[in-house]
């Protein structure tokens, strides 16, 4: 680890801290339908959208209608994405003449993946998806699923803030205002900033470059093995050209991070020089992943009238973030002990450390930071392959997802995920002092805790069951590409990423199979909607309750003590559930690596 590395990490955290208040105030104003400086332009578009879609913007919904509207919207838009993939050959903006996305289970998997804000990718973008599918199908869902997430978080906050009422807002209004006020303006500016750094934005067919030095390469057959000629020698081909994939990347890149989606335009995601060409574009992408979620903590404080509670939650998130990034940075900077003769020392002249699967321009600090941030949030973009990280360095992203991505978290999803933990923390504190737990003036009762526990239990259940099946059955283990404990981690990571709606992967796993496409598609839908419905139930139930003024026996949720308790609940729930699985994967691999074992 170097001083410069830490400087970059702390600079990033300082930016997140700085944006929390202004963005939080802005979000609160947008969703309370107060005036903002963008109204002049956006109000007419908003009104037009309501007229076109038959929405009455003054209609208030009970939590059930809110949930049904959200489900209908997700269902319809998911079907449209499936359809677009299957007929992309007939649609415009397809200069590479890609055929329909095949097989059908891959298209289903991708549709489920993008609708749930997961962006798990069993395909490779530049060889599968037309520009139309990327824009109107995939990037569109980056907006839509993010807007749904923000709307839900706001609905939950309303549930806490409102008193003795049946309603928690209007889903369509929240959705539209998320898209128009929160997502679109920043993306317009951010996309152009990215282009200035070198992120491409065009509709060109792929370009062909004449290589400076033609290359002799082995001819590889369909089975991935070198082809041997009749004389027993491996056949060689001469490569003289380089095909350079292009596309409307910047417009998709920025919403990929700003909406914590994470689905790359290209297979290599934010490691690809056309998605993330410079250290500054890298910083902008990192900042975009955390900004809205950090802002929402301030919005929580503002809308519930307890600003210090918002900061207490922020502090818990920042603490867990720092713990993760320190571990990942330390592990990666240490390098791979199995490589003995090479120079892995980190210095100003070379990145050093574990550089397999990392880019020189990012080095170790920015790669470890990216891996931590992308999994603290439910983003899942990557700028280095987690599969090639050291065992402990790769365990950090895995654990982050296992903690349900509440460390700032996905846009909206991080906030309502965290509020579930807050409910549990308050409940546990109440048990300890022997009083009915209260949260910001609302009594937390049996129904609320049951719903919160439902969320907390379904998540590990689906992950562990599917991981267990895949680890012992041929259709699961056939996807493994790294033998030993690492292979188990590949499977565990996949299902954790799916259920957590993260979308990053131990990318070696060959997951484009019937088994993985269908189970991952299913688990992503469960991980998204099975969380949301109990969560909205709590919101509706809280809104109905009377306000109870705080008394001497109330456990305050604004103090450092609360922050510590909250961190404790997150770690205990997450760590205890998954520790056995972790010890079979990354922990075992770390110990064996230290003993010099290779597989």
């Amino acid at each position, binding site marked *: 680890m170097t001083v410069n590395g830490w400087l970059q990490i702390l600079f990033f955290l300082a930016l997140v801290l700085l944006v929390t208040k202004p963005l939080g105030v802005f979000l609160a104003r947008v969703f309370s339908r107060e005036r903002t400086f963008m109204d002049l332009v956006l109000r007419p578009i908003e009104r037009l959208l309501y007229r076109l879609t038959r929405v009455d913007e003054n209609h208030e919904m009970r939590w059930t209608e809110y949930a049904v*509207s959200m489900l209908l919207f997700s269902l319809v838009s998911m079907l449209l994405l499936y359809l677009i993939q299957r007929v992309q050959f007939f649609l415009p903006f397809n200069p590479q003449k890609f055929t329909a996305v095949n097989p059908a289970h891959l298209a289903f998997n991708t549709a489920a993946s993008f609708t749930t804000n997961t962006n798990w990718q069993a395909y490779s973008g530049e060889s599968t998806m037309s520009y139309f599918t990327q824009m109107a199908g995939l990037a569109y869902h980056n907006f839509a699923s993010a807007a749904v997430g923000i709307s839900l978080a706001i609905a939950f906050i309303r549930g806490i803030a409102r008193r003795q009422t049946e309603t928690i807002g209007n889903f369509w209004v929240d959705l539209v205002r998320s898209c128009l006020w929160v997502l679109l303006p920043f993306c317009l500016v951010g996309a152009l900033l990215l282009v200035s750094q070198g992120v491409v934005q065009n509709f060109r067919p792929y370009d062909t470059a004449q290589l400076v030095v033609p290359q002799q390469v082995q001819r590889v057959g369909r089975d991935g093995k070198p082809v041997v000629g009749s004389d027993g020698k491996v056949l060689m081909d001469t490569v003289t050209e380089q095909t350079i994939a292009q596309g409307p990347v910047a417009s998709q890149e920025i919403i990929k991070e700003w909406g914590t989606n994470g689905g790359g335009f290209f297979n290599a995601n934010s490691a690809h*020089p056309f998605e993330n060409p*410079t250290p500054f574009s890298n910083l902008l992408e990192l900042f975009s992943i955390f900004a809205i979620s950090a802002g929402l903590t301030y919005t929580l404080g503002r809308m519930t009238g307890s600003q210090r509670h918002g900061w207490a939650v922020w502090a818990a998130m920042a603490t867990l973030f720092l713990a993760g990034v320190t571990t990942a940075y330390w592990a990666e900077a240490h390098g791979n002990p199995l490589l003995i003769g090479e*120079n*892995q020392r980190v210095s100003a*002249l070379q990145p050093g450390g574990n550089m*397999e699967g990392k880019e020189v321009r990012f080095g170790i600090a920015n790669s470890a930071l990216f891996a931590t941030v992308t999994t603290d949030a439910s983003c899942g973009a990557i700028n280095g392959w987690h599969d090639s*990280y050291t065992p402990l360095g790769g365990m950090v992203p895995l654990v982050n997802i296992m903690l349900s991505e509440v460390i700032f978290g996905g846009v909206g999803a991080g906030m309502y995920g965290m509020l579930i933990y807050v409910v549990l923390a308050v409940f546990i504190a109440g048990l300890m002092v022997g009083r009915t737990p209260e949260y910001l003036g609302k009594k937390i009762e049996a129904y609320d805790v049951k719903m919160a526990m439902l969320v907390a239990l379904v998540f590990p259940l689906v992950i562990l069951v599917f991981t267990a099946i895949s680890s012992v059955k041929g259709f699961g283990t056939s996807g493994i590409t790294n033998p030993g404990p*690492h292979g188990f981690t590949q499977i565990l990571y996949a299902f954790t990423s799916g259920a957590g709606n993260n979308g990053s992967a131990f*990318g070696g796993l060959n997951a484009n199979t019937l088994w993985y496409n269908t189970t991952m598609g299913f688990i992503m839908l469960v991980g998204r909607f099975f969380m949301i419905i109990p969560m909205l139930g709590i919101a509706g139930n809280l809104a109905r309750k009377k306000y109870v003024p705080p008394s001497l026996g109330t456990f305050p949720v604004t103090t450092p003590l609360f922050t510590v308790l909250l961190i404790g609940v997150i770690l205990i729930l997450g760590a205890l559930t998954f520790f056995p699985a972790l010890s079979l994967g990354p922990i075992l691999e770390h110990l064996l690596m230290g003993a010099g074992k290779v597989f």
Partner: protein
Amino acid sequence: MKKNLLTAVLMTLATTILLGLIYPLVVTAIAQVLFPKQANGELISKDGKIVGSALIGQTFSGAGYFHSRPSAAGSGYDAANSNGSQLGPTNRQLIERVTSDAAALQAENKAAPVPVDLVTTSASGLDPHISPAAAEFQLLRVSRARRITPDQVRQLVRQHTEGRQFGFLGEARVNVLELNLELDEHYPLH
């Protein structure tokens, strides 16, 4: 329910047109006007032919060129198939590949240990850069093959070394394609 279903259909269509089509087209139009070079991939032309992109690496072989990092994209630096090796840290294939590549490099320069970025594959498989240490490691070989002094090469390397952005972001790096093109221009191979 029925009314919300109708709204769901209409909302999907309306927002798809706005966010899925109008938005990217507007960004493209502005980007093509403001940053035409960047928006099209910073392509490099020589004698009227495209020879590569300043952002995308290429494989180089032969003693007279600086070599890029190994690549797992297609058959190597395939810019239509970006990928890393996806090899885990305890995978025998990784350890054997790195060890044998490092031994070959060590044979041509025994003065210093091999910088690790020169024997590890990048994440994209298209990394256009090597570290300054990796350039220095190859410097003598290149100068000998081109029959020029090491300092002449070192000067070019320095010109194509980018420091940390704004003085503190990212890592120092050398663009291999640009450096090799410049070498060919100033000190052509015989």
